[in-house]
């Protein structure tokens, strides 16, 4: 055992230095933010001006999937990398899932699962003109996945792995595939053909939503879950 304890909150000298430096950083950053030059409007104005060309009416979705699409592409890659990182340390989750000794949870999950799929699809569709989109829908799908695992409504291990892998890479494949196709068709990376942007965005977002949901579930569970045959 190390000779110090974590919940030791004593203000040692290094901590006082760290505290002073953090406070100085807070003061400096506040000053910078409060006295920032007023011209923060350039991107805002460009984004609003060209919103009609983006294929969607919600400016946040337009920025995410059109104007800064490459950013979101890289982010989907980061999600996949995080899961690969976790799996490379431990393929299987540390906690065994047990079948609950009451059928209520499983019955509830069977009822609510299709509804959550519906809600996530609705949020995705809504993202075109109101707050919503792949990330919100993906969060609902992730929650659904966690419920599904907790209720031990089960797939055999090899099937689950195959299913999980396909879902995890779907978003990145759709994104890279679409941008490569666009590069071949239009001659430029991530530039949708005029008037057809919405269809491209919808395909990419649907795939990204599924991957985001699966990624969030995997992050929560911390690896491929295993079923303990006994009951709680």
């Amino acid at each position, binding site marked *: *055992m*190390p000779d*110090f304890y*974590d919940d030791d909150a004593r203000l040692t000298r*290094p*901590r006082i230095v*760290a*505290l002073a430096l*953090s*406070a100085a*950083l*807070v003061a400096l*950053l*506040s000053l910078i*933010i*409060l006295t*920032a030059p007023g011209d*923060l*409007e350039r*991107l*805002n104005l460009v*984004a*609003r001006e060209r919103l009609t060309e983006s294929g969607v009416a919600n*400016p*946040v979705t*337009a*920025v*995410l999937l059109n104007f*800064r699409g490459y*950013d*979101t592409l890289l*982010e989907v890659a*980061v*999600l996949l990398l*995080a899961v690969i*990182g*976790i799996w490379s*340390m*431990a393929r299987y989750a*540390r906690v065994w899932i047990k079948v609950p000794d009451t059928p209520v949870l499983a019955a509830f999950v069977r009822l609510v699962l299709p509804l959550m799929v519906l809600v996530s699809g609705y949020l995705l569709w809504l993202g075109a003109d109101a707050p919503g*989109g792949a*990330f919100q829908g*993906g969060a609902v799908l992730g929650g659904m996945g966690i419920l599904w695992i907790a209720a031990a409504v089960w797939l055999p291990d090899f099937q689950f792995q195959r299913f999980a892998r396909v879902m995890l890479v779907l978003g990145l494949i759709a994104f890279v595939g679409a941008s490569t196709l666009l590069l071949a068709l239009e001659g430029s990376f991530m530039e949708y053909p005029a008037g057809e942007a919405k269809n491209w965005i919808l395909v990419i977002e649907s795939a990204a939503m599924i991957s*985001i949901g699966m*990624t*969030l579930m995997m*992050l*929560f569970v*911390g690896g491929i879950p295993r079923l303990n045959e006994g009951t709680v």
Partner: protein
Amino acid sequence: MNDSAALYAVAGVILFGMGIYALVAYPHLLRKILGMNVMGIGVFAVFVALAYRGPDQPPDPVPHALVITGIVVAVCATGLGLTLATRLKALTGVAQLTPDQED
């Protein structure tokens, strides 16, 4: 920037400072991961405050898009960090940084 947005922005900066202190000052990895999350939330608060354009105008969509991707990346970083901490605990018996060996 109007007053309420400035208040939000400064609150975000303070959260960032609290997070960075926890990250640096405590050896336990769970505290460090939590500190990193608090820092991230501070940054998101600053971004949302900077995007605010008053009650009559819609906010700037660019920082909002950055925040929404940032939240998901923060969740990923947390998950990866927790797995690393668990692995360290499994290998060494403690989930915290130990002082450098001096010889």
